């Protein structure tokens, strides 16, 4: 029944007014609410800003109107009928239902020798990089399913990541991270990083981030080779690291249950949250910048609102790895079981959507959604697999952002543009929308007299209503109790009274200054 209601909700209601629909669509493009212009006193500025706001509205509407022609592909979906549950639907039955192109995407690659495997997709989702723990590296073109390069480094490989495009990738090996090119040639050995456990690449900043065995965080600019920052986290060894795609802040999960967030320009973490009682095993960030999922050894999976740093939901369960898809699906894996959760009602309450069990109990080490496709890549102890997760990927790509069908020329062009638009490390901050806004005045608004008075009264009331404990040996005599209460009231009043006297003195000081004629004021002695 639930599923049926859902399907009704998802269906575009034909009778809905077209303009209403357009407004709803345009909301996404407005990027937040307009400024409140009513409070402005400057008429000229108000006029200018009104024009600007109007333009924003128009452009959002134009973008919403153009959606119809610009976005040809439709989202995937999986709907259960009758008593069926979506999470009981097997991959085999999905494959039977979808078209030929879709049915070619899932695969199981059994590589028993050099496992367990980890994997990584490019931003466009076209290429996949596979790293086996025992030194096996391979790059695969996911559209043609060509093996582009395969080689062995004969050393422990802990993590792999693509750099700005598929031409280069970084590998966390036994002692150092290395950078290889597409042909498998070693380009750089980054000795300064130490023995890395995890790698991340911030594509807009061209920063390669690594966390090493000693819990040190390194930021290196791969376009200039400069080591931007090197911080000791001081929270021990960790292999849980994820970059927040919304603001490029690095999240680290520690063995003490803490999650810390880092930027390259501060040696202290921006945020430290105690998320679990026990080691954090996995962490994932939603692309919208409002959600974080963490999993811990304490058998908890938690969803956090990282705008307010508040917990939204706690679920019980283990997860070795977590990943959010472009459309907000959450994949988690525990042992050989992969589960996909979905926020079905839009209130960040995730519920089960799909599940998948690896054959023969292969242990899953890494799950990663493939961008712009309804595919989940799984790296496990005996190779790699991919399964179909309908509704996980963004159906429409933008040629200028991430293009799966990129030609060589386009790739080169894009690399140049990416370098021109390379962001400085200072632009990494918790709220990236802050850039270009006005800094709020530092001085706090002084509370009005009335407010302070009411505050004082409230404090006095609170003090009066305190009930004292019953004490023995005459210490609870009525007189003693009255005295105690009086003291308590006085204590509550005191800060307010002190402030009042201070203000009075300051005023007095000011008035003495004002008594001098204005011409002589500059000779008045300045008191400290």
């Amino acid at each position, binding site marked *: 029944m639930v599923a049926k209601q859902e399907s009704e909700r998802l269906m575009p209601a034909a009778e809905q007014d077209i303009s209403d629909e357009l407004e709803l669509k345009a909301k996404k493009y407005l990027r937040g609410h307009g400024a409140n212009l009513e409070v402005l006193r400057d008429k000229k500025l108000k006029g200018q800003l009104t024009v600007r706001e109007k333009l924003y509205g128009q452009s959002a509407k134009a973008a919403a109107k153009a959606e119809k022609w610009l976005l040809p592909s439709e989202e995937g979906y999986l709907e259960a009928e009758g008593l069926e549950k979506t999470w009981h639907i097997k991959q085999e039955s*999905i494959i039977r239902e979808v078209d030929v192109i879709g049915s070619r995407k899932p695969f199981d690659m059994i590589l028993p020798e050099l496992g367990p495997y980890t994997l990584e997709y490019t931003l466009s989702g076209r290429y996949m990089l596979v790293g086996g723990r025992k030194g096996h590296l391979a790059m695969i073109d996911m559209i043609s399913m060509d093996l582009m390069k395969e080689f062995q480094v004969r050393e422990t490989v802990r993590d792999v990541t693509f750099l700005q495009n598929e031409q280069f990738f970084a590998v966390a090996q036994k002692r150092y991270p290395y950078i290889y090119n597409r042909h498998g040639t070693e380009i750089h050995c980054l000795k300064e990083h130490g023995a890395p456990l995890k790698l991340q690449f911030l594509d807009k900043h061209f920063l390669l981030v690594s966390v090493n065995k000693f819990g040190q965080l390194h930021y290196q600019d791969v376009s200039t080779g400069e080591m931007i920052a090197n911080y000791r986290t001081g929270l021990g060894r960790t292999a849980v690291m994820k970059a927040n795609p919304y603001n490029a802040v690095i999240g680290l999960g520690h063995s003490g249950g803490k999650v810390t967030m880092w930027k390259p320009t501060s040696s202290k973490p921006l945020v430290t949250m105690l998320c679990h009682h026990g080691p954090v095993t996995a962490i994932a960030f939603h692309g919208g910048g409002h959600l974080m999922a963490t999993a811990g050894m304490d058998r908890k999976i938690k969803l956090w609102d990282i705008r307010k740093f508040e917990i939204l939901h706690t679920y019980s369960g283990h997860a070795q790895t977590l990943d959010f898809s472009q459309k907000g699906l959450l994949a988690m894996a525990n042992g050989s079981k992969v589960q996909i959760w979905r926020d079905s009602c839009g209130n960040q309450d995730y519920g089960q959507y799909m599940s998948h069990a690896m054959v023969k109990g292969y242990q899953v080490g890494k799950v990663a959604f493939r961008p712009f496709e309804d595919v989940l890549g799984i790296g496990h102890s005996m190779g790699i697999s991919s399964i179909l997760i309908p509704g996980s990927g963004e159906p429409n790509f933008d040629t200028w952002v991430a*293009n799966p069908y990129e030609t060589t020329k386009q790739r080169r062009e894009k690399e140049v543009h990416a370098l021109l*638009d390379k962001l400085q490390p200072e632009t990494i901050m918790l709220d990236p929308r802050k850039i*270009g806004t006005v800094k709020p005045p530092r001085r706090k608004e002084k509370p009005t007299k009335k407010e302070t008075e009411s505050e004082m009264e409230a404090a006095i009331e609170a003090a009066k209503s305190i009930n004292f404990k019953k004490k023995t040996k005459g210490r609870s005599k009525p007189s003693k109790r009255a005295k105690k209460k009086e003291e308590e009231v006085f204590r509550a009043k005191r800060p307010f009274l002190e402030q009042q006297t201070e203000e009075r003195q300051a005023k007095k000081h000011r008035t003495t200054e004002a008594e001098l004629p204005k011409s002589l004021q500059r000779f008045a002695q300045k008191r400290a």
Partner: protein
Amino acid sequence: MKVKVISRSTDEFTRERSQDLQKVFHNYDPSLRTQEKAVEYTRALNAAKLDKIFARPFVGAMDGHIDAVSCMAKNPNHLKGIFSGSMDGDIHLWDIATRKTMRQFPGHQGAVRGLTASTDGDVLISCGTDCTVRLWKVPVLKMMDFSDSMENASKPLAVYVWKHAFWAVDHQWDGNLFATAGAQVDIWDHNRSEPVNTFEWGKDTVISVRFNPGEPDVLATSSSDRSITLYDLRMSSPARKLIMKTKTNALCWNPMEPMNFTAANEDCNCYSYDARKLNEAKVVHRDHVSAVMDIDYSPTGREFVTGSYDRTVRLFQYNGDHSREIYHTKRMQRVFCVKYSCDGSYVISGSDDTNLRLWKAKASEQLGVLLPREQKKQEYLDAVKERYKHLPEVKRIVRHRHLPKPIYKAASLRRTMMEAERKKDERKRAHSAPGSMPVQPFRKRRIIKEVE
């Protein structure tokens, strides 16, 4: 069970033949483009830097005169041509594209002080200190028709001799009249050897005259008794007069808002006035460090150019109190005359060093035809620069100009002096009876009185 997954066939998303254009797909969803603001800011910063790198405003110098250039005139009917008159009585017609003299108009005995062309571009009128007004036929120029020889010299259509030396001349817009300034303001007809009308208000020399582009019968003059006077040809006497503390060297009407004019003053500032309301300036344009000698509006009316005795040319917004741009070279001496080209993309200055100089109106603009894509890109960069112009880094880069040392020093000296004056005023005010020294805005301070 109903199921659908994203399925793209490669054929649909790639081109068929290699000659085809690449297929481009758009998705304007903001969630695909994270950190938009940081990216935009970076682009604005880079655009500001590139603008500085590409700022090469000087196009070339036109030399040929043998004395200081005293006046210039645009030909409203011919974009490439510009007339210039010099202190030795020579008049040249220049081709801006090749920067060569096309024609010379010899005849004046003393300095040429005023030049103007009729609105149809057929007749050139010059006047000078030799008390003559000369009318010349403007030659129709062919492509390869230039030489410096005197064979190319024209003969005047008419020479009108008059009682006094002339300081300026301006032609009526869309009419047959022109006005000269000297000991008095004379209104002439092309075909009459004597003025058809004469105005006089006070005994001092009138030094500049400009007809209003919107109302053909209205003209404004400035004279050496520090006054700006408005005339209406339909009336027998001058209409209004404004006396300032210092002399106005030149004035120019805003072609798009013809009730407004800007006066280039001796006190280093320019003052924009509304002709209907002369009791205060609308804007005071400051930045020059010496007398402003000439001023000319862009045909768009959004900008004007000024030339100053401090050897610089500055460009102002019509409503901006400080200059947008300063142009200077080591060899440019006192600038006596400036003109905005008729398409608003070039500025021409004539100076004491006998040269005319050609500048771009936008220092970093690319010359020549822009492809539509280049144009789009430029528009985008301008927009992001505008959006982030208040951020300190962008502001610093956009604002920074290299100044010649004497001008830098003079500017800081002027600032010191102004500050001292302000302080002194403040103290005077503090020591005097309240209300006896009202605060006067700078827009009013330099005005002595307005006479009806």
